[in-house]
């Protein structure tokens, strides 16, 4: 029983990260049908930004860690959003303007990701960074179940972000515009909607969330290295698709699902088979629901 609860908590935390990153994927995808393969690396950049911001404040003033944290959260989100928007401006937008096939933008995103990773490596060197402790760790223990305050914060953050995004996308006018763009970019300006602003807004949201995820991740797994975003990025993408890409609920659920599957497989089967089993399960889900859990099949009207 204890094991079950413990694993449940583990899965919730790990799934939270998948969910946070998958939300960013889905948001951008939902608007531009662009698989932003650089998203994992934007997340990595977010973690680094958080690192620099936090060490800056810690080093410069004699702030209490919690004050530093309070400053780091918004700054990180803002700066990371800046990175995302910059990519959009200099790499994706010109291609879009030229009417390139969307997969060329996807490949460009992939390349941007590589530049972020290796540029970081080239500039900062291969040494890993240790993220400073900004939160006094509290371990709550009941019987064999242990959980840290950080874990709870992470889970809470994922849920909050999900609710906010879900509200924006489904309830607001700009959210409606975002959904419209994915279907027909041509007609959006005809509705009086400034398309570029909406796209920039999307990148601000998506990358901001990646920044938040990066910060929380750095606090939970305080070792930063240039390639830290690659694998988790790919997996979060998979989670987003399994949930039904383009759908906020899908990304959220898909992230947790992947977290649960990975933790579950390790807990129940020989751990060496984790990837094999986890991906088989995901394939099975897609087999049953070919457009993901929340994905709606595009009805081809002929």
């Amino acid at each position, binding site marked *: 029983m204890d094991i079950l609860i*413990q694993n449940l908590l583990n899965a919730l935390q790990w799934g939270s990260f998948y969910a946070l990153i998958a939300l960013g994927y889905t948001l951008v995808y939902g608007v531009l049908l662009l698989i932003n393969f650089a998203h994992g690396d934007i997340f990595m950049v977010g973690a680094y930004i958080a690192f620099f911001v936090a060490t800056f404040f810690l080093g410069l003033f004699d702030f209490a860690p919690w004050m530093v944290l309070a400053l780091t959260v918004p700054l990180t989100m803002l700066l990371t959003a800046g990175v995302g928007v910059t990519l959009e401006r200099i790499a994706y937008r010109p291609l879009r303007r030229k009417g390139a096939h969307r997969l060329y933008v996807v490949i460009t995103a992939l390349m941007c990701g590589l530049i972020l990773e290796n540029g970081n490596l080239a500039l900062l060197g291969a040494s890993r960074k240790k993220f400073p402790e900004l939160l006094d760790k509290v371990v709550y223990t009941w019987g064999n179940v242990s959980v840290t305050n950080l874990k709870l914060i992470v889970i809470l953050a994922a849920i909050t972000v999900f609710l906010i995004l879900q509200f924006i996308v489904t309830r607001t006018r700009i959210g409606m515009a975002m959904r419209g763009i994915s279907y027909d970019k041509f007609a959006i300006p005809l509705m009086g909607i400034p398309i570029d602003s909406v796209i920039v807004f999307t990148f601000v949201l998506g990358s901001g969330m990646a920044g938040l995820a990066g910060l929380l991740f750095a606090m939970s797994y305080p070792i930063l290295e240039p390639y830290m975003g690659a694998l988790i990025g790919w997996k979060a993408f998979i989670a987003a698709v399994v949930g039904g890409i383009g759908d906020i609920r899908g990304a959220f659920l898909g992230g947790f699902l992947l977290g649960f599957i990975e933790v579950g497989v390790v807990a129940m089967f020989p*751990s060496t088979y984790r990837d094999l089993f986890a991906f088989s399960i995901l394939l099975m889900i897609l087999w049953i629901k070919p457009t993901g859990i929340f994905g709606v099949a595009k009805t081809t009207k002929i």
Partner: protein
Amino acid sequence: GCSKEEEKIKIGFNIPLTGDIPKVGEASKNAAQMLLADINAQGGLEVGGKKIPLEFIYEDNESKAESAVNAALKLIEQDGVVALIGPNSSKQAVPAGGTCNDNRTPMVSPWSTNPDTTKNRPWVFRAAFLDPFQGPVAVNFATKQFKATTAAVLFDVSNDYSKGLAEIFKEVFEKKNGADSVVAFVSHGTKDQDFSAQLTKIINSKPDFIFVPDNYNQVALIVRQARDLGWKGPFMGSDAWGSAELMKLCGDDCKGQFFSTHYAAAGAKGATKEFIDRYEAKYGETPDDVAALTWDATRLVLQAIQDSGSYNSDVKKERKAIRDALSSIKEFAGITGSMKFDSQGDPIKCAVVVRIDETGNFVFAESICP
């Protein structure tokens, strides 16, 4: 006028500057740079009474097998190096070793632990000891130190070093403590960051200690997460822990743990201490085992060049001379301990077990020789 190009001894480095383990490449390169500067400052390597300057050429193998082969071929064919240092990890060292052996160029891998790297390859050598030796060291030490009868193992399935060592450890431990005394044998993937599921499984099987033959960066995460999950027992590690960064990343959580390795930085004496101090001064961090092993590997090659008595400007002949000299080195006093070479070109050397003390230094606990 007609200036003849200055004669130089070219040595190639086939190292992972990008890809999965850039830190390994960087450390290798740092150590090599330091050695290069040392020797060239004296006017070059003294061979047969003549000083010849050195030139080191660094090629990135991107941590990929095919790139390692291409890099090796480029160094051999285009740059005409007389010997190669690296690759470091076995994934690249095994195929690159084949290439060097086929092309009759001596190669010394600092770090590779896979027996295949050197097996039946007269041109390939290494500076690190093999898993089959390190496994028992860890078992014996842990059994004695922790009075352990049960153990758990957490390793990286996709990393042949980690997996190989884990398997040997399991075999030896169970031979000593009876079947099923390794109560949990759990794996993770190479770039994983969350180990809570694995650790939950391990903690629940209540082992006396956890053996973690993993790279230091993952060790830092594993140890921390284990503490978060309520584990209070000891860990035992392997040589891959031995990085300067371990303490920076792991902090207090790792203090008091033990691991087996090639050398202990703290409390080192003589040449080792000098190396460490200078490296620290130059790069601002304690050299890890890769740096030390690269240093030794390169010095081995230089030693061989000197042993051969004269430098031959015909590259092919010089390579042969180096190989012959390498294979006849009987004993070599490296900063990672003194080593002898067996018929395969693998070193026989002592392992040390190191304890991480309260100040975070790696202090010598015990030396175990084969």
